[in-house]
């Protein structure tokens, strides 16, 4: 307090954001500009659209985009189908040891991920005999195994916070359980579903470690970018990174409205006082 009186400098809340701001500039913004620079220049440093056209015209790079997209869509769908019932039961059910059950689903996140995938590899080998015959299936299993908790948690939280009086109202007004679920619970859990999709869809488009470890030798977006950099083609690699960034951006804008309303409403429910 004394210090405050003596000097003109006052530590305000804004100052607390300085370290992160610095971090943001050094490690997010600066590299981003470097990527943009490389993406739109060629070896001689001239501005060009060659890299973008090269990406779009090559059936292999667009094929990789599609393949990654396919993996991401299937992984996300499987995660959603598995996670929603679990989250629903956990949030709505009357367990005596709810936290224990929840922990069972969250616990895998505490174990190192390469270790988990290695274990999964052995388990799958026992079941399938030879892993190499089903690379796509194995990838989906691996990704689902890896990302499932990220889908369960947000849905669970949203469902937990859901105002029970709405469900009671729904049944008071004559809706049966299915109708209540479809017309009240499900729509209200959309923010949770969206953030779950976010946390699963985007990483599964680029997480090539799972593919590598489960012997799927097809490139996805992450490994394709790596291959370009290993071949000293920084320009092409940066362009692919940028294309991926753009896709993510569009995806974010498309789904943002749900997230915003969620934040605007507070408490994740409809009833704000």
């Amino acid at each position, binding site marked *: 307090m004394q210090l405050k009186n003596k000097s003109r400098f006052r530590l305000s809340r804004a100052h607390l954001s300085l370290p992160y701001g610095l971090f943001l500039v050094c490690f997010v913004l600066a590299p981003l500009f*470097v990527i943009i620079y490389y993406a739109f220049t060629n070896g001689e440093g001239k501005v060009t659209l060659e890299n973008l056209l090269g990406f779009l015209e090559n059936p292999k790079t667009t094929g990789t985009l599609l393949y990654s997209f396919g993996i991401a869509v299937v992984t996300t769908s499987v995660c959603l189908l598995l996670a929603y019932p679990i989250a629903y039961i956990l949030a709505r059910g009357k367990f005596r040891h709810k936290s224990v059950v929840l922990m069972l689903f969250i616990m895998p996140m505490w174990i190192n991920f390469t270790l988990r995938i290695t274990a999964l590899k052995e388990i799958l080998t026992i079941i399938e005999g030879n892993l190499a015959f089903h690379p796509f299936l194995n990838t989906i299993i691996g990704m689902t195994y890896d990302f499932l908790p990220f889908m369960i948690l947000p849905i669970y939280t949203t469902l937990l916070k859901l105002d029970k009086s709405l469900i009671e109202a729904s049944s008071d007004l004559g809706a049966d359980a299915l109708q209540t679920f479809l017309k009240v619970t499900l729509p209200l859990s959309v923010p949770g579903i969206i953030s779950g999709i976010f946390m699963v869809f985007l990483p599964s488009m680029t997480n090539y470690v799972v593919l590598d470890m489960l012997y799927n030798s097809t490139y996805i977006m992450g490994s394709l970018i790596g*291959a370009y950099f290993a071949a000293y083609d920084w320009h092409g690699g940066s362009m692919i990174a940028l294309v991926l960034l753009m896709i993510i951006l569009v995806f974010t804008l498309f789904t943002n409205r749900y997230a915003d309303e969620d934040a605007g409403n507070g408490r994740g429910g*409809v009833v704000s006082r």
Partner: protein
Amino acid sequence: MRKRTRRKTGMLVLASVTAAYLALHGMPQNNMQVFAKSEDEIVLRVCNWEEYIDTGDWDEEERIALDNGVEIFGEKPLYEDFEDWYFETYGRRVRVEYSCFGTNEDLYNQLNLGDTYDLVCPSEYMIMKLMAEGRLEPYSDTFYDKNNECNYYVNNVSPYIYNVMNTNEINGERWGKYAAGYMWGITGVLYNPEQVSLEEASSWKIFADERLKRQVALKDNVRDSYFAALGILKADLLTDEEFRSAPDYTKRLEDEMNDTSQETIDEAQALLEQLMGNIYSLETDSGKADMVSGKIVADYQWSGDAVYAMDQADEDDFELCFSVPKEGANLWFDGWVMLKDGIYGSADSEKQKHAAEAFVNFISRPESAVRNMYYVGYTSSIAGAQGDDTIFEYINWCYGAEDSEQDTIAYPLGYFFSGDSEDERYVITASPEQVDRQLYAQYPPEETLKRTVVMRYFNEETSKAINRMWINVRCFDIRDVPAAIWLAVIAVLLLIVFLCYNTGNRYRKFAEYGRNGG
């Protein structure tokens, strides 16, 4: 060394971090201030492969007592031993800044980002590339003076390696002028003798064999896979008796295995695409464990890693063997080269160069070579000077037959030690099974080495074509998608949009109610 080409998990992170580094520092020569601190001390910046030098700290029972009376024991890291030795020998202090790289390409990218080193240890093709770009500093004439006993490299290097280094040229200059050999090896097929016959494993065609569908593995890098593909494509020619007995066989083999014409690249692509349907995986590191656990029965392997895998298998009472295909195999080596950037960017380039050369000499001492071989598992280029049989005794210690063994064979290594294949002083008495196992992989016999060739570096244009070929092999082709899948995708997308719209509307209704009713 080929062992450590595993792809870094954090490639993306790495790329952005290095990009940020580049943005912040520009092209730094920031090592200059290090010298300002203490004038007498030379700072030698060395960059080597990961886990490619003995780091000491051996347990007492690891002490190696050789038959010639020499005892080998690693107490401190070799580069720290070098610091002491340099001070004792030359009376000047040197401090080694030792760092590591993961792949040749990583090292090259690091150098381009402005990292400065005096001494680095890349593989032969990267040495050629750096040589062609004029970035290497030649060793001084005094380095090759055999009369100076501190010139351990020139006095101890194997005549075989010395010959390879000095008969190969890039742009009219011998490699030996710029590079000092460190480790070397060959490629071949690591196989499971219970499932695969020696004859099958003696051809690169094993990777196309339908009988072994999904039970063979190739390497996850373009140079090795391309080499195997060439071996299969040209098998008829390469195994032709006339071709093999031609007087210029080596030269012609080298040209064939370095064929990078566009037609060959296209053929290789078609073949590799077909092989992708037959192999278990493209691996870098996992192949060794998968061989030992029996998931795969044959694996394209580098000799050093093959030795490691065979050792592992031995511990599990399981047998693995190594073979070098008859079409020809790849001879590779890693060598120490000095970078002009580092040497001339330092305070006193003469002292700097002296320290760099002394470092190469120090780790070329037979004791250092044994320590490195013991720790790393690869084959050193050092054979030992005349009269010093430390290396030979070490091989004997590793692979020599016990005195009690009855059926032994003579395994001549004269070509490596004295340059004379008939030399009777350098014959290992080994058990017969070693002939297609560890000893064979670590020190291949001379007639096997006759069919090994060095793979040259790809110039920029070829490199582009080959990398494009590799990406094509690895990528999913959008044209392969059947119409049914397209229809399914469209249907799913429509469904998702419909659901989003429907549920979203309902959600918004609730939200509106929430706001108005609140």
